[in-house]
């Protein structure tokens, strides 16, 4: 989903930067607030950032006949909120743009918007909706990770379709969807399983942190059962 350096006209670069910056700013403020109030959250935040760092570096072959990379943005979004991932994505994408020519500085706004805004927000929405519908933690995080990853690629396809509506936006969008989103489906499934494994491991090691973040329900103290006298 990394749009390469110079592969968006300058006005689209400005547009996506303008859209991404408020989310990044909110994420930085939220991250500072979380770590100031709960310094013990720092390692969990680092785990989420490292997970994105690893996932976005892996080029995975897809059964569709091409290859792509997972994003890892669902886990952190569910834990800390979507905008924190917007902020975390910035140094990762700058690192890849400068050291590997993967993505770019001019296209950073567009790449942050797809990987750090659209994907994470969709993941959080699916997590909340899934939990409301009564899904278990593992099933909900699986779906959140899948949607977070896949929607990142849908967003990238839309960004390119908008910038190059040749001959029309619809046809360009379908073309981009076939390149990005179709390849991504099996990779998203693999990433979702890995996210479940990591989630369950954190749940086992530090359930206290997840409870404080309201990811896990806090255990309610058992109320003494009082037998009501039967009405005659």
């Amino acid at each position, binding site marked *: 989903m990394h749009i390469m350096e*110079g*592969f968006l006209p300058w006005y689209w670069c400005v547009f996506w930067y303008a859209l991404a910056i408020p989310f990044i700013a909110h994420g930085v403020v939220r991250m500072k607030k979380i770590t100031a109030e709960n310094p013990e959250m720092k390692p969990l935040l680092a*785990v989420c950032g490292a997970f994105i760092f690893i996932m976005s*570096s892996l080029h995975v072959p897809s059964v569709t006949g*091409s290859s792509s990379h997972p994003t890892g943005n669902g886990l952190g979004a569910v834990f800390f909120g979507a905008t924190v991932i917007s902020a975390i994505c910035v140094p990762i994408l700058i690192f890849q743009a400068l050291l590997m020519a993967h993505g*770019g500085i001019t296209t950073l706004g567009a790449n942050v918007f797809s990987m750090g805004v659209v994907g994470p927000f969709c993941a959080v929405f699916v997590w909340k909706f899934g939990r409301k519908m009564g899904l278990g933690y593992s099933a909900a995080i699986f779906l959140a990770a899948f949607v977070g990853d896949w929607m990142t690629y849908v967003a990238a396809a839309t960004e390119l379709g908008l910038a190059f509506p040749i001959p029309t936006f619809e046809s360009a969008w379908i073309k981009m969807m076939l390149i990005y989103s179709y390849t991504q489906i*099996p990779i998203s499934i693999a990433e979702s399983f890995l996210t479940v494994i990591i989630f*369950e491991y954190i749940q086992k090691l530090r359930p206290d942190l997840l409870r404080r973040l309201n990811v896990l329900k806090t255990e309610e103290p058992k109320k003494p059962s009082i037998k009501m006298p039967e009405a005659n």
Partner: protein
Amino acid sequence: MVSRRTVIMILIIIGLVAFPLLFESKAVSAPSSDDQGPAWILSTGYIPWVHPLWEPPNSDMEAGLFALQAAFGAGIMGYIFGMWHAQARMRKKEENKEK
């Protein structure tokens, strides 16, 4: 102990990643989706207005840098998980001593 469910999930991940490598050589040699997108854009006659400041000189170096990135991330995750694991063990030991 790793649960049976986790083992099944790991096997599914390996299956999803390894299947194309075993049966579809196309998946390995074909350009990635990150390369196919720009190729289509270039075919429309678009000329990129900026170029990367630096590009890895060959694919081996590029792969090495990606591996370094993954190793760095894995190092952080491994360190924190190890720390949490040790803390949990210490807590258990202290609880047992108190009993």
